[in-house]
């Protein structure tokens, strides 16, 4: 590494912007090279002088004066912009509500049909010819309807057995 390469790093070295390895390389070089050490010192003095000049000579705390001006620039209340995460959550909530509404609308014909089956008289009755001469509905989806029909069947069964009772039994005949 020659002096030119090392001097190119002087500004960053004084700014503490070099890696540890690069900083060590500079220090090892200037320990041995008087000319580079002089260059570095001169640069350091320049930056020091600039810092002294740039710094305000006598900064004065003027907050009291500033405080009196604050109401004059006080803006009318504006809502704080919502954070993106909150907007996202709100959007998801709205989409979920919309999805529930759409699902309810889609399912409503089924619900209406189900309600009709629950509350209306048995329909689509067909005679199956099960020997009792009883018209049995071929579709009994709900429990109350099922129980009612079972009662009807039981009643008709009793009626049927009473007719059999009138005929003499086989053992009696034998």
């Amino acid at each position, binding site marked *: 590494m020659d002096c030119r390469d090392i001097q190119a790093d002087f500004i960053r070295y004084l700014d503490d912007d070099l890696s540890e390895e690069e900083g060590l390389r500079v220090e090892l070089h200037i320990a041995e090279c008087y000319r580079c050490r002089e260059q570095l*010192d001169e640069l350091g003095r320049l930056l020091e002088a600039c810092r002294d000049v740039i710094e305000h000579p006598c900064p004065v705390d003027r907050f009291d004066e500033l405080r009196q001006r604050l109401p004059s620039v006080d803006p009318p209340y504006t809502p704080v912009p919502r954070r993106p995460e909150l907007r996202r959550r709100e959007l998801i909530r709205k989409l979920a509500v919309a999805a529930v509404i759409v699902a309810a609308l889609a399912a409503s014909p089924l619900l209406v049909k189900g309600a009709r089956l629950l509350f209306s008289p048995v329909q689509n009755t067909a005679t199956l010819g099960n020997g009792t001469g009883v018209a049995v509905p071929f579709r009994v989806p709900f429990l109350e309807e099922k129980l009612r029909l079972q009662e009807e069947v039981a009643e008709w069964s009793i009626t049927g057995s009473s007719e059999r009772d009138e005929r003499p039994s086989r053992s009696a005949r034998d």
Partner: protein
Amino acid sequence: MPAGMSPCEGAVDTALMLRVRWGDEYAFAELYRRYYRQVMSFFHGMSGDAQLSEDLCQETFLRIWKLRQRYTASGSFPAYVFAFARNVWLEQCRETRKRLHVELSPDVAEVIELAPASRATHPDVAAERSELAQYIFEALGELPVEQRMAFVMRTIGGLSISDIASAMQCPPNTVRSRKVLAINKLRESLKGLLVL
């Protein structure tokens, strides 16, 4: 909390600014006290004028207060403050340019507006300043605005390269190169003035 210490003194800058958002003047006072020296020094380095730098510092904090509801607590707070300071300075340059184009001939106005630090050439101001400081301000005035800004922000202390990059809205390596270019030009301009 030690006696005599206000509730704001131990709080971090971000927490204070969040309170400022809700109109807390005590928190704003604490932030002002933490940063007004650096902000004034920034404007002093850019303009060379102590009085102007105080006025521009006031303007900077006034804008921070006015636009406090936009603060989002993302990023470094010093970068936030100096972003405002940068904008105030750029507006100051634009207004100076407009005013000088109206009052003076365009050639003269152009020379003056490119080197705001040459206000130091005003006789009264120059008399108060050492010769070296005069030369330094003249050399600073010859730098392009962005290079001067990067150099001044880094010199006043308290701002990292990434803070400066955020305030100047450019990549960190751009800040590094602007600073290096500024220092090399200053070295060239001030060669021989600094003696052991």
